């Protein structure tokens, strides 16, 4: 249900709170076509199950009653990770259990919440508020909690320290977290419950069903130790300075900010990381604090570079009646390895870093929209043939596609929008002979074409165009087109 809940949350956010009442099915595409990856409870009621082909699912439900969305496991994993960080309010040791589980080590934490029963209730309520379907169980081992949460009868359960075996007995084999093949192998010999596995002679299990089964049983019942890999919370790196009373001198504030920046970079260097965003906060007396933020295209802990970016912001900042506190924070941060200092700064690596610094400086002054790269879009309609994307990384950034640019040649100067012109042609579909615009008129001496570009059928009422490249008597090469439906002529570009 995790993926379904996430998609629903995104849908609600996108439609500003309006709820889509249709059933939801997440679709994945594999070599054999489209399949149902996850589905909501209503779809399940209609008989749709994960793994079924999409065609089959469509046959089971009316077409307008289902909403199809792509299944994005990576996105769901990332969301699970952030949920794990959120869950650190209940326990310092939280691990993700993909695809849709979280494991919390609550040893000692239950006291803080007034017992494990209370803790389970609190976790459940919090998840309810977030709007995620969930089942919560606490137990003496991770294995028991996992099995009871997924296969137990209640949505919230607590297993007593000595009740592990009793709790696991009635559950199906799958609750032991074993591979699907093991479940099937046991099913073939008629073993479907944990109690029945426990009744089998222990020494025969590994040879018949693999070593994993025994390990899982031991872990669930507490005779083998299980460790988990907890997620780590990375905290922002920050430094601050408090003045003795409000400082009004710009130089003093600037000096403090610069010192803090050097300090911050030293801190980052000790952690072998670099900042992706740096925020400078000024607490002003009698006025609210202001935050100056600099976003970087690549992680950096170069104080000189960061100062170049921050300083103009700081100079323009309004100090009000004086600044009481300066705080500098780096967040998010990224790992950035130490570098050997060398005398000769040459080579492609340095250049990429230098380009990154240059782009940061440019973006800082011209804005994200003022610094772009062009990406080619596959369409025949000339005015839509390219898209501007933000220039961030160095070299050829991943979002930019250039390989599809191919002939026929296009003029380097494109007029947007195209300019309507008066054209005299000898035949209705023929090349133009004279072109006239508001200021004058010119004779066509040579022409190439026509090249027909049809409107894209999925955009309604887009006319078909016949393009001609013509040279006029002044030597100008112009790109004109004739709209077949309306008979009008437009000037669309120039070779210059």
């Amino acid at each position, binding site marked *: 249900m995790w993926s379904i809940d996430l998609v629903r949350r995104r849908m609600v956010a996108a439609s500003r709170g309006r709820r889509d009442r249709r059933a939801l099915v997440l679709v994945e595409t594999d070599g054999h076509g489209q399949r149902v990856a996850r589905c909501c409870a209503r779809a399940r009621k209609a008989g749709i199950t994960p793994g079924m082909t999409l065609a089959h699912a469509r046959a089971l439900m009316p077409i307008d009653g289902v909403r199809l969305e792509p299944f994005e496991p990576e996105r769901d994993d990332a969301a699970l990770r952030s949920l794990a960080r959120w869950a650190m309010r209940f326990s310092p040791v939280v691990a993700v259990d993909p695809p849709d589980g979280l494991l919390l080590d609550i040893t000692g934490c239950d006291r803080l919440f007034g017992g494990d029963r209370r803790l389970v209730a609190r976790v459940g309520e919090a998840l309810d508020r977030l709007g995620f379907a969930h089942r919560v169980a606490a137990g003496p081992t991770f294995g028991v909690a996992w099995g009871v949460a997924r296969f137990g009868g209640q949505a919230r359960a607590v297993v007593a320290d000595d009740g592990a075996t009793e709790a696991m007995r009635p559950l199906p084999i799958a609750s032991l977290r074993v591979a699907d093949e093991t479940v099937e192998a046991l099913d073939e010999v008629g073993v479907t419950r944990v109690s029945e596995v426990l009744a089998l002679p222990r020494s025969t299990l590994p040879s018949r069903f693999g070593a994993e089964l025994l390990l899982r049983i031991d872990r669930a019942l507490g005779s083998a130790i299980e460790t988990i890999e907890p997620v780590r919370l990375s905290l922002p790196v920050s430094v601050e300075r408090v003045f003795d009373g409000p400082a009004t001198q710009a130089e003093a504030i600037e000096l403090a900010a610069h010192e803090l920046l050097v300090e911050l970079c030293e801190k980052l260097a000790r952690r072998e990381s670099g900042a992706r965003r740096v925020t400078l906060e000024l607490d002003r007396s009698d006025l609210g604090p202001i935050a100056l933020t600099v976003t970087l295209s690549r992680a950096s802990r170069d104080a000189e570079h960061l100062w170049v970016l921050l300083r103009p912001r700081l100079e323009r900042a309004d100090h009000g009646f004086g600044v009481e506190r300066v705080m500098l924070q780096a967040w998010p941060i990224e790992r950035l390895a130490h570098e050997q200092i060398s005398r*000769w*700064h*040459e*080579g*492609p690596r*340095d*250049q*990429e870093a*230098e*380009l*990154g610094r*240059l*782009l940061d400086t*440019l973006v800082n*002054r*011209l804005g994200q*929209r*003022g*610094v*772009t*790269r*062009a990406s*080619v879009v596959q369409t025949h309609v000339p005015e839509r*043939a*390219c898209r*501007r994307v933000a*220039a961030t990384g*160095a*070299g*050829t950034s991943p979002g930019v596609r*250039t390989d599809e*640019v*191919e002939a*026929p*040649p*296009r*003029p*380097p*100067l494109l*007029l947007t929008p195209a*300019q309507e012109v008066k054209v005299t042609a000898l035949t209705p579909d023929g090349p133009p002979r004279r072109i*006239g615009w*508001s*200021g*004058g008129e*010119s004779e066509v*001496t040579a*022409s*190439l074409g026509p090249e027909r570009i049809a409107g894209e059928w999925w955009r309604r009422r887009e006319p078909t165009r016949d393009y001609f*490249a013509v*040279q006029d*008597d*002044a*030597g*100008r*090469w112009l790109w004109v087109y004739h709209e077949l439906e309306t008979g009008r002529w437009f000037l669309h*570009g*120039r*070779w*210059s």
Partner: protein
Amino acid sequence: MRSAYADIEGSPEAVRQRLREVIRRVEQGGSEVRLADSGVPTGWDAVDSALANQGAGAGMGGLARGAVHEWLGIGEHDTGAPCERGRGPGQGWILPMSLLMHLAARAIRTAGEGEGGGRAAVWIGSRCWPSPSSFAGVYAELLGRSIFLEPRDRVSRLWAIELCLRSGAIDVVVADGARLGMAESRRIQLAAEAGLARGGGGFGLLARPAWEGGAISAAATRWIVRREITPGSASSRSPPRPRWSIELSRCRGSASQSGARWVLEGGDETGIVCVPADVVDRPGSAADGRGLARSA
């Protein structure tokens, strides 16, 4: 360093010239001297050989790196035609976009050999952004390395030009160079020299309006571009072949050659601008009677 000196050859005068250039760079404290990279060959034989015979201003083998080159756009007096408007009535101009693309692509190609990494071309001012769909074939690499900047005003445009030229990661800067004073032009030229010393290209191409031919500047060369009429009627198979004549109106360090003219043609099969076939073998007859393209 072997590769850096491998290409010193030719007449004793040329060798002396190159060595002088090397010494100048070393004295300026450049981190590395790259002889092979010091010029951007234009690919137009007659132009290249004329530039090779020039003084230090033009550098060796084409347009000098670490310098700014001004290109005066094509004047347009017919106000109805689409062009950039000037202040006066009937005053318009259009950028020699194909020539700028050609030179930018050559600057990228001659610099990037074997280095890879983050080299880039920057186009400053939306007026001089070529339409991306025109980067076909040979220009595909150029498009992949192009960054387009749109400064809000003249001051930030100058700031961006200077910053990019000064950077060691940029090979070529193509910029809208309208309304530049002598002081600003000097700053830009110094930035280009600093850029070359830092390992970048420091190669600036400024597009200036046709009527700014009288403005003084510190640029290494100044070129005037005019439109020429392509002779004959085009067959329906070939791409459009616009023609221009370019005139070297100023070249720092030598006054003798200024006024030389060459005819160029765009749109051959590969999209590159070249000297048209029917002009190559014709004896010169241009302004001063010596500059028209000859087979070199």
